[in-house]
């Protein structure tokens, strides 16, 4: 972060680029969704909330752990991981500090909050105490799930060479599926994104709860437990990373 502040142009350019990128994404989404009317009962406001949960989680987790997801492999191959290991600080913590750039956070959060507030206003959404607490917990859980996914995908570097492509497929292509209501996809996609790689817990199930679209017991239970699932998934990701680090320590590769 300090290095970005030293180069002011990079800092302001980063803020503008991120703001522009997210604004264009939301604007296009809004135009297309308005044109289609609704998708499987999800109106433009509902899908904005769906997209908002996803974007918030991804921007925060990306600022913290994208370096681990995409660069851990290079750090291992170059031997730089050893430099992290000789310092009295956690490896992930050091990587998070290294990748943390506030300019990548300001634009996405600002644009997302504006579009979500507009969406809530348009449907006259009543924010109760429970909703507010659930909303905060769901956003936190989404950040933890996305972060966990990044950590696990980065940890593949301990077992394979150049796994960034897998990270890219999961964090870009597969994640893009969750920008749409999960109910429009075949059952195996829904189950995969719920139980195998729980990206749907980042936004779909919390949106069902918030927008009162829960129809089955399964949706209600998953929606209610998704904040807890975020914590569990993040802990699991740390475990995977530690296992990988133990492998590195026993093989140096």
């Amino acid at each position: 972060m300090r290095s970005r502040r030293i180069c002011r142009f990079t800092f302001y350019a980063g803020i503008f680029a991120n703001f522009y990128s997210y604004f264009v994404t939301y604007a296009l989404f809004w135009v297309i969704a308005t044109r289609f009317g609704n998708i499987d009962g999800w109106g433009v406001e509902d899908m904005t909330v769906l997209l908002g949960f996803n974007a918030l989680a991804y921007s925060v987790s990306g600022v913290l752990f994208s370096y681990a997801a995409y660069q851990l492999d290079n750090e291992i191959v170059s031997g730089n991981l050893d430099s992290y290991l000789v310092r009295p600080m956690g490896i992930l913590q050091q990587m998070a500090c290294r990748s943390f750039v506030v300019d990548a956070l300001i634009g996405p959060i600002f644009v997302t909050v504006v579009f979500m507030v507009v969406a809530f206003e348009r449907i006259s959404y009543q924010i109760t105490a429970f909703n507010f607490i659930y909303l905060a917990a769901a956003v936190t859980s989404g950040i933890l799930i996305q972060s966990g996914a990044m950590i696990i995908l980065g940890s593949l570097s301990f077992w394979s060479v150049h796994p960034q492509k897998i990270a890219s497929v999961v964090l870009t292509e597969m994640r893009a599926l969750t920008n749409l209501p999960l109910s429009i996809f075949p059952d195996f996609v829904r189950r995969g994104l719920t139980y195998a790689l729980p990206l749907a817990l980042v936004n779909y199930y919390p949106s069902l709860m918030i927008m009162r679209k829960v129809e089955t017991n399964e949706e209600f239970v998953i929606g209610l437990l998704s904040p807890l699932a975020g914590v569990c998934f993040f802990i699991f990701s740390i475990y995977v990373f530690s296992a990988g680090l133990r492998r590195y320590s026993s093989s140096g590769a």
Partner: protein
Amino acid sequence: MGGFIQAEALSLDYVATKGGGFFKSLFLGGHETIHAIKDVSFSIEEGEVVGLVGPNGAGKSTLLKVLLGILAPTSGEVSVMGGDPFKQRRDNSYKTGVVFGHRSQLWWDLPVSDSFNLLKKIYKVPEGVYRQNLSYAEEHLGIYALWDVPVRHLTPGQRALAETGAASVHGPRLLILDEPASGIDISARRRIMEFVKRLNRERDATVVMATHYMNDTDELCGRVILIDHGSIVADMPLGAFRQRYGGRRAIKVDLNAPMVEFSIEGAAASPEPGGLTWRFRLDPGRITMGRLIDAISERAEIARVTVEDERTEDIVHEIYLSGLGDNLAPEYAEPWME
């Protein structure tokens, strides 16, 4: 286990994938075990300065990584500052300074000052201690001249000075140096060696240094551990090492006029460009210094003769040429094959 650093029958194996054809490697991935460190035992007392020397791939850096707790040994026991370095890596890192000559531990985009301030926070160094250690590094390494320069703008020599200073900012009890003076100018190299020497003498830091450059060992180390193919092949005080494997004398002869060619049995000759200065390494059993001087006098007028101790670098070079372990030439074989 006693000793500041203690290793007993230490071994570390890698499992590497064997080569093969494309399709074969896809379905029948063969593996082979590489013995990076083999049954190594040694002890280093607090306050010692030990040089770890050996050719590329000998296992020097791997051994340092084990001492740092980066790699866990496959078998055997190791203790650093009273505990298992792998299990207490974080605790030990507060008391250990590390310089990797081939990679930077500083933050590339930040000025040197910011890197030092970050390290102060990471190592939780009290302000007073930090100021004291910084002044010490400034006094001997000239850190303040680099203070506001982003690390990426430093020359290799300046970066090495900053890296060494950064490794000392938390007042380490143990300094691990892996090729600290690799590829840097002579001035920076001397300052670094002098600084490390002072850290050892004035601040009781124990130093373990892996290097290719035996000059560094000559300047700094009281003891040499020679390692090859993952095994220790010699471990003794530097003086004993030189006495045991050296024995030959080196003579530098300056001439008043260039001498194009010269050779004599029992002395390896190496002229400097221009032919005005010649260096000879004498084999004591085969030629005397007097006979060599007489022979040169017959060919050219001698301006000055300087007798030099044989450099450790030359001794090790001879040992490498002779081969280690089973391939040792007879005159080198005896000491470590007993």
